[in-house]
């Protein structure tokens, strides 16, 4: 079974990345601009399930967060079941990074 094929049996949860994920996501995800946020929708490069990620510039918090590196890290946030996923998390575990460039 290849890791990036849509699968009939549930793909196990695994926190993995690959440079190809970013390339596929950059080509396949559709950005949608809202006030204070950008919503990226597409298929996860690993599990191929529909995934929607909301990117915001600010969030209310009480504890200290890590500094912003400039690029955005996306997680698979599909609704599908992936065995072995820790409680409180979503998706299949795949992650990758993207640059968001605003064109005039």
């Amino acid at each position, binding site marked *: 079974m290849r890791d990036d094929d849509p699968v009939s049996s549930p793909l196990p949860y695994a926190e993995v*990345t690959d440079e190809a994920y970013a390339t596929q996501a950059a080509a396949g995800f559709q950005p949608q601009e809202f006030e204070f946020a950008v919503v990226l929708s597409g298929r996860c490069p690993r599990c191929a399930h529909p995934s929607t990620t909301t990117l915001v510039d600010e969030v209310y918090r009480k504890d200290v967060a890590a500094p912003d590196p400039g690029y955005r890290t996306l997680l698979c946030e599909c609704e599908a079941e992936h065995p072995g996923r820790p409680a409180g998390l979503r998706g299949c575990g795949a992650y990758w990074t993207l640059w968001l460039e605003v064109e005039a």
Partner: protein
Amino acid sequence: MIRLRPGPPATVADLHRAQQLAGLLRGELERVRAAAVAWRNGLGGLLVALVGFSLIRGRTDVTTLAAGWGALVGVLLLAALAAGVAGALALLRAAHGRLTVTPVAALPPVPLGDHLEAVAAVRSLRMGVGLVLLCTALLVAAVGVTWYAPARPATAAVSSPAVGSLPSAR
């Protein structure tokens, strides 16, 4: 228009940061609501303590103040009332949301809708805290004026010749 470009190779630190941010975003509205309820209760208690238990109390009769000072006290109390009501409404809006309905067509995606509501609630919370503190300051100023403003000059005693007085006996 936003264009997507592949980023640098992702690291475990990137993963943890993204997971942390996703968690913050998921629970954001609940945290803002909880903070707003705590601020509402705290500031409400402060005002009740100040007014209800008479921790600050001015003169009961402002007619004894010099001309103009009584009116100033009235303006300060009116401003305090307005600031207090507006602040209370802002705190309630932050803690419990707006009393409005949204057209279904205008609904944003679920996590984004919660984020937008959280941002609006934080703004209301800040405004409410500021207005309640302003209300308290105006109240204290009004009470201070009643105590330290100059008093109305005492009216001059009208002297009249004694009536029916007996001439002094010689």
